[in-house]
């Protein structure tokens, strides 16, 4: 065993350049793997959270910009008068928003205040926050990401210009920065406040229209039940609805943008392939260089299995080294330096979980084993006499 370890160490340090280059060629793909997996799992976590919330999103069947009458909320709730299986139906209207002198558009949604608290209990608002939200119809719950960008804190007064008619500047009072909300960029305000503004500025505009409803259900079975029932309720009416669970609703937005999760998954598969090729190349070069040695070892009486494991462990060690570097680099860079605060779309901040790093190291180990298959099998089959005859 001792001999083996010495031989392994000597093998790895024999051609330092090659070891270094191979390590780098394995490490960089692992960096890509770790980073893209972190983004993908961030998006997945976002969607899984949506799925856990047992919420349905009800939109107009024709398209998302067609609006529904606010009265639908009562009709939806009448499906379950007990309020046990269908807890809340919150009407929402997207009003976007822009700050003065800031080009970056905001995402603000006007909601039914009381229903909102019931439907979005995952926000875990404190009792004081809830009270402040209900008391003041100019109240706004801002996303913590947005709050960080503009330096907002609870108690601030802000004015946001709506991006839908009547495009007036609305004054809001921040009551919470929604620390537990999954979506860190969206702001939530009272729909009644927006409606009032609309009525004041454009009296002839149709009042009481919402972009979508979020319906909170009691259990998974209820979710599946109401998904069908709500659409049935409004079938063959003027405004037919399309009901999806929150995950499907959010996923539609994400995949319509660039489908980052799918593209990054493909990229990380491809990149692992690159690492396999690079490591295999090194191992086959090593084999060719040490052809004589292996023949000599066998001639001295070391078995085929010994030579086989020798090559396997070398390749494994090489790739593990690269894998550990590749996994640690992004981990340190994103978890322990300011780089970690760079905002990423949808998931806000890149969180690199240790488990992803461990996966990367495991993959590197597998790469090592695969890379050594061909040379080690060749070494196993090496005919001593024939090989020694090739020596000059």
């Amino acid at each position, binding site marked *: 065993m001792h001999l083996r370890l010495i031989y392994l160490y000597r093998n790895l340090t024999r051609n330092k350049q090659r070891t270094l280059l191979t390590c780098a*060629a394995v490490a960089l793909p692992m960096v890509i793997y770790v980073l893209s997996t972190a983004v993908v799992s961030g998006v997945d976590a976002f969607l899984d959270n949506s799925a856990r919330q047992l919420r349905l999103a009800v939109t107009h069947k024709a398209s998302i910009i067609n609006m529904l009458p606010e009265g639908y909320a009562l009709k939806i709730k009448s499906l379950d008068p007990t309020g046990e299986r269908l807890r809340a139906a919150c009407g929402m209207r997207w009003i976007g928003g*822009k700050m003065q002198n800031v080009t970056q558009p905001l995402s603000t949604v006007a909601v039914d205040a009381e229903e909102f608290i019931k439907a979005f209990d995952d926000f875990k608002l404190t009792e004081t926050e809830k009270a402040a939200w209900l008391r003041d119809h100019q109240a706004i719950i801002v996303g913590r990401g947005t709050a960080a960008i503009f330096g907002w804190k609870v108690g601030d007064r802000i004015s946001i210009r*709506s991006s839908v008619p009547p495009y007036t500047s609305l004054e809001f009072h921040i009551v919470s920065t929604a620390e537990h909300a999954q979506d860190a960029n969206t702001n939530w305000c009272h729909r009644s406040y927006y409606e009032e503004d609309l009525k004041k500025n454009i009296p002839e505009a149709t009042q009481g229209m919402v972009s979508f409803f979020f319906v909170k259900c009691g259990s998974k079975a209820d979710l599946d039940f109401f998904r069908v029932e709500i659409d049935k309720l409004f079938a063959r009416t003027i405004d037919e609805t399309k009901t999806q669970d929150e995950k499907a609703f959010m996923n539609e937005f994400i995949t319509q943008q660039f489908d980052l999760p799918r593209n990054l998954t493909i990229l990380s598969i491809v990149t692992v392939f690159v690492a396999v090729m690079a490591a295999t190349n090194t191992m086959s*070069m090593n084999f060719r260089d040490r052809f004589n040695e292996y023949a000599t070892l066998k001639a001295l009486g070391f078995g085929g299995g010994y030579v086989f494991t020798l090559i396997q462990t070398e390749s494994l060690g090489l790739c593990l080294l690269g894998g550990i570097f590749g996994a640690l680099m992004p981990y340190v860079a994103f978890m322990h330096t300011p780089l970690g605060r760079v905002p990423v779309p949808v998931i806000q901040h890149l969180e690199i979980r240790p488990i992803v790093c461990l996966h990367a190291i495991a993959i590197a180990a597998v790469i090592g084993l695969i890379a050594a298959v061909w040379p080690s099998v060749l070494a196993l089959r090496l005919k001593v006499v024939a090989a020694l005859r090739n020596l000059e």
Partner: protein
Amino acid sequence: MALPLSYNWRNLFVRKTTTLLTCLVIATVVGVFTWLVGFAGALNRSLSYANDAHKLIVLKQGATSETNSAILPEDYNKLSQVQDVAVNPKTGEPLRSPEMIVQVSLPRRRDNGTTFANVAVRGVTDAAFGVHRNVKLLGKGFSSGSMEVIVGEQAAKQFGGVQIGDTINLGYSGNRGYKVVGYFSANGGPMETEIWGPLTTLMNSYNRNMYSSVNVLLNDKADPDKVAKFVQGPSVDLNAQTEPAYWYDQSKNIRIYLGIVGGLVSIMCVAAIFAIANTMYATVAGRTREFAMLRTIGFSKNQILLSVVIEAVFLALLGGAMGCIACEAWLVLAGNTKDMFGATTFTTMAFEIKLTPYMVVGALLLVAGVAVLGALPPAVRASRVHVIDALREP
């Protein structure tokens, strides 16, 4: 006299396994790279056709896109104060096009209608065909006041239910049937993913009394920025952007995504540099005597250095060509149609990823550059061979 190229070419086949494996590394990197460039290129191509700097898109102050903008008829009338508007040579009317944008959810053809895309429906008047200079009717247009629409080429290609003869359900409650009577092209621009119909009929169907936006074509002498300032000023008080600026804003989010993927791909390029360097080091190390021999028969240090670099470039080009072929094959097999949301329009922009000769040449140049970087250190080593020592080696 330099070393003959056939010397390098043949050397590649001396070590077939190594050559093949290095080629595969390069091919993979180049394949991913060309796909990404193809994507970015398709996006830019599409947007560059929406690049009429003399066209102003006028929105309501505060609106972020045509989708959420609403312009009252009296606002529209204020635009008559704007100077430097181009005129229609036939009728002498100023080229101002009031337009209304709504959306319709259409099934994607590439997955047989399991997913839907939001496609923009634009209500237009005759003026629109003068203002949007890149829009060309292919065949018949709609007659104004009728329930007819024309469909952009790209939309007709990628979405279901919008082929000539089909009826699309539009309107406030999605219950007014509009007949598709023709197609139009917009030179590959984003409008090719739209459906156009008569403004008045569509406004009626959607129960609207406001326009979404007004597109204004300025004459060649006008300064678009100055006119935009005037529109934003107190006498009109609307928001105006030139077309390139508008689309630049709309594609910001996509650029962020492309940036993320681009960053990761460049890490892959670095990995490829290391792989090439590794291979070339091995090649050089195995040929020390050969190089010493070449030196003794009169080849200079630089000639040997160049020769090693050329060999690496050959290797890279071989891999690069494989990568381009793989990328093209992927596009053919997995489909090259893509569509995506604008940042705040909530409507889809569809385009096709195509590998142009430019991109292929660009990718090959890049990979050649990568090869030079990777091959230089080993090449320097090869050129510095101690002739006597190397020849004496067994």
